[in-house]
């Protein structure tokens, strides 16, 4: 078998206006079955993908944001949000969904999946990745 690779999903686009966010999430869910090291970055307009309180009913589109809550169950729990991107949009961490996972190495304690990073830390994350999928 191949070695484990570091997969990085870079999400830079807002949901609904274009399909990239939805179809990116579909890749992440399928990819979770492959036993690789998976990280997600939400930066630039990508931070809107995990905004709290999305309600797409009147727009006639499908609200796929609840699916992000399921990421923890798929062992996708390394989720990084860029601080500078939130600030430029007048948002804080409190505006985002509370994404969590249960840590099997710590008696299944519920832990936060989201970590806030600076642009410099995001840069380092990109540099150490093997495969970068950008949406």
């Amino acid at each position, binding site marked *: 078998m191949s070695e484990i690779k570091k997969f990085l999903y870079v999400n830079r686009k*807002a949901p609904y206006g*274009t399909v990239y966010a939805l179809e990116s999430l579909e890749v992440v869910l399928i990819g979770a079955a492959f036993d690789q090291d998976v990280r997600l970055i939400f930066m630039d307009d990508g931070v809107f993908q995990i905004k709290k*309180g999305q309600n797409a009913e009147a727009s006639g589109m499908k609200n796929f944001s609840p699916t992000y809550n399921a990421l923890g169950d798929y062992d996708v729990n390394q989720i990084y949000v860029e601080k500078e991107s939130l600030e*430029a949009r007048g948002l804080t961490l409190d505006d985002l969904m509370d994404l969590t996972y249960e840590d099997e190495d710590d008696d299944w304690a519920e832990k936060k999946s989201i970590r806030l990073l600076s642009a410099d830390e995001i840069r380092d994350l990109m540099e150490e990745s093997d495969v970068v999928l950008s949406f």
Partner: protein
Amino acid sequence: MLHIVNKSPFEKDAFTSCMGHASSSSTVLLIEDGVFAALKGSAVADQLSKAKVVALQSDVAARGIEANLAEGIELVDYAGFVDLVTENRTVQSWV
């Protein structure tokens, strides 16, 4: 006249270009990802005063940003969108 902006002001130049070409008597309607221009405290919020800015309710709701809007942003539904089109002789989309 009516200007329609459907792009995020953080990703594309459409909103900023529109506000730079809208007269103070014109109305700017934000739809789709354009509604992000109506966020309070954002890097583009100071441009909102250049014209009357209206946002499409259903696109604001889809993105969950009702509570994050700048003051004075009026919301309209699709019927209101149609009214804006018929009330204004000229309609320009900043696609």
